[in-house]
């Protein structure tokens, strides 16, 4: 089909991870050792495994690990390479774009989403390889936002059960966080002490205190003391471009090693193209995937799709048959609908003092005030804001994008880099069926139809954003920053294109992430979110995956799988 299919086109300087699969021949990369290997169990393509999982990020990686540890046979496919951070990761914004999903996509709508680093990953470990490590719990009421708060839809999950899985995820990821968290119901102490604050984080604290709001150290998935083979964070500041020391607790460093030790097979550079279903039973029989120059077919008793909110619906839609003409698991017509992103606007300013915001994890402090305060709002939903530390290319992209600067003015502005500070929100956008992922006619390097991502902000979204911009502006100003300006157009995380719910007519999967239509087809990633909340989603995705694994074990024990 395709003569030259690379994971990502481009002239990356380092390593051969993108050139050919590494996890082969009974071994997989040891991510903690330069040139290292660990043994890996292998399965034949024609051997029907208990689970084939498409994607190894926060959802798929977690689930692969837990299912393997429960004794199921598991093959996990990832379209991206299997990196060893110690040898493959440069301290460089440009080189590290090799971590992103840069296969072709089309974006449109009134507010087209910028795809790439902030909402995708193409590597074993998914986007957790380059996420900002912010590990937050949902506000309990968000699981029933329709009945408790009057907007969106309710989740079929109970927050009290989720609280247990959040705690389990926080332990597994050795989250560094504050002694007591200022918002929401009681939670256990974080396993690791909070990180030291940098100056940029102090500015957030100062502003929040002068506004009369609480703030805290952000719970982060990077260790503040040694853990296993992870050394403590050295504050190099390139977190969003891959952690080159392995302090970061990502799916690549946490779940993958455990999955391998438990007997799972991980296949890197393996792009899923189609889920096969049996024409008579309608059940899934396995996954067609492209690896090492050829299309192959892995047979499986269960298929889990964990490709995130664009690739998951893309695969389900592309797997249509005469029995399922609108794509798999799509009786409700909701596959690819209700795409949500999160508003990610910011206010930036300048301090008299040197700040040097490139040091340390970028978001060391947070205020969730407006996630938990419901009064005096002219919008539904919530948002938090966090301290910032963009590296030079990210920072110049703000200057050119938000302010349209160029020429002398741009260069002059950039020389204030070490005095800049900022507050950036993560805001809840409401589900809307008109925001979609659909298949376009153009094809990618595998010959597969590319995704068209269509997005427009609602009036509620716009009111929430304006509220947040005003609040962040006030906060930064009270903290003593001058030369304030607003970045009005930015979004980040995705969710929602295969929502979970209470019945087959109004959702794609049930509370266990099992599709209503095909009982051996599951979705386990951010796509299942019915609403997206005002915090970063990765911890919730991992908590749901932990729960799904437990449910699968229980269902199997009852013979209901």
């Amino acid at each position, binding site marked *: 089909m395709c003569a030259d299919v690379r994971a990502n086109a481009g002239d990356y300087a380092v390593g051969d991870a993108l050139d050919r699969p590494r996890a082969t021949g009974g071994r997989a990369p040891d991510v903690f050792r330069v040139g290292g290997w660990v043994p890996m169990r292998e399965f034949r393509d024609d051997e029907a495994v208990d689970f084939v999982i498409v994607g190894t990020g926060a959802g798929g990686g977690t689930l692969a690990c837990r299912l393997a540890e429960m004794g199921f046979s598991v093959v996990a496919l990832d379209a991206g390479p299997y990196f060893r951070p110690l040898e493959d990761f440069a*301290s460089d914004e440009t080189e590290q774009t090799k971590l992103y999903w840069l296969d072709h996509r089309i974006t449109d709508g009134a507010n087209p989403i910028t795809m790439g680093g902030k909402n995708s990953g193409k590597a074993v470990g998914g986007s957790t390889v380059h996420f900002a490590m912010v590990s937050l719990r949902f506000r309990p009421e968000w699981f029933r936002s329709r009945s408790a708060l009057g907007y969106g839809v309710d989740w079929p999950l109970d927050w009290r059960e989720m609280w247990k899985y959040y705690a389990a995820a926080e332990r597994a990821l050795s989250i560094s966080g504050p002694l007591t968290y200022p918002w929401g119901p009681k939670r256990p102490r974080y396993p690791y002490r909070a990180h030291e604050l940098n100056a940029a984080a102090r500015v957030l604290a100062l502003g929040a205190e002068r506004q009369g709001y609480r703030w805290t150290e952000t719970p982060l998935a990077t260790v503040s003391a040694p853990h296993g083979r992870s050394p403590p964070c050295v*504050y190099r500041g390139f977190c969003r471009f891959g952690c080159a020391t392995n302090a970061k607790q990502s799916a690549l460093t946490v779940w993958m090693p455990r999955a391998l030790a438990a007997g799972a097979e991980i296949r890197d550079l393996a792009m899923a193209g189609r889920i096969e279903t049996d024409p008579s039973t309608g059940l899934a029989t396995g996954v067609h995937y492209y690896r090492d120059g050829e299309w192959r077919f892995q047979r499986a008793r269960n298929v889990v799709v964990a490709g995130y909110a664009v690739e998951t619906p893309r695969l389900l839609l592309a797997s249509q048959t005469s029995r399922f003409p609108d794509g798999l698991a799509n009786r409700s017509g909701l596959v690819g609908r209700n795409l949500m992103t999160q508003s990610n606007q910011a206010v930036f300013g300048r301090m008299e003092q040197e700040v040097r915001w490139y040091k340390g994890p970028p978001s060391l402090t947070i205020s969730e005030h407006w996630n938990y305060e419901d009064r005096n709002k002219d919008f539904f939903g919530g948002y938090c804001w966090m301290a910032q530390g963009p590296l030079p290319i990210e920072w110049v992209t703000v200057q050119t994008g938000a302010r349209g600067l160029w*020429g002398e003015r741009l260069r002059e502005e950039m020389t204030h880099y070490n005095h800049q500070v900022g507050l950036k929100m993560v805001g809840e956008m409401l589900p809307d069926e008109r925001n979609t992922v659909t298949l376009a006619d153009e094809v990618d390097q595998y010959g597969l139809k590319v995704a068209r991502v269509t997005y427009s902000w609602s009036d509620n979204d716009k009111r929430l954003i304006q509220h947040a911009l005003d609040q962040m502006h006030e906060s930064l100003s009270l903290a003593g920053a001058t030369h304030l300006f607003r970045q009005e157009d930015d979004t980040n995380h995705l969710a929602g294109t295969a929502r979970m719910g209470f019945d087959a007519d109004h959702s794609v999967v049930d509370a266990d992430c099992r599709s209503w239509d095909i009982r051996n087809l599951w979705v386990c990633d951010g796509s299942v979110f019915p609403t997206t909340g005002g915090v970063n989603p990765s911890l919730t995705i991992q908590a749901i995956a932990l729960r799904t694994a437990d449910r699968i074990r229980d269902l199997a024990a009852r013979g209901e799988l």
Partner: protein
Amino acid sequence: MTEDRYPGYDVLSKQAGLSWNEATRRTIEQRLDIRQEPQFFDAGQWQTLGALCDRIVPQTGQRPTVPLAAMLDARLTSGRTDGFRRAKLPEQGEAWRRGLGALDAESQRLHSRRFHELSVAQQDALLLAVQRGDATCEAWGDMAPAEFFSHRVLLDIAAAYYSHPSSWSEVGFGGPASPRGYVRMEFDRRDPWEAAEALEADPDSALRAERENRRVR
């Protein structure tokens, strides 16, 4: 351009030190070793691009010049993309070729000369018009001039400039930092391997900063 805010600071002085790992050394070595002749653009586009880069990021300081046009050409040759295309823009290579042609066509229409032959003031005026979407010649085709300007010209040229160690030194960025990282996180604190800043109010501070910066390893 104003005077050097970080006199004598050179990120590359740390190249062999504890702040750079092997992967970073290879990456930056490859970036600095760049072909000066175009592969992706033809000779005419190359002239226009050179003039455009000079206006978007004018390089007037004392630091080594960053070969912006060559870096952009290399990137487009490699086929590395943003991973998506806005529906209002063609694919990035096509957008660039067409956009550079259209800049020239606008220039011919207004001044009967090519873009790189205009005065700096004329170039800036033309670019401002494009940025405002105030460009009408047929060469743009179905591509919106303002979209091209904000989502290709500014994005790609600025990203090229700030991917170069020269720019890091200029703005006092610590640059690559693995495995050593940083220790001093507070306001007004710097590690000895970070850039020392010259304060405008204090003429002696430039000398002190330069002395400190020469010691950065």
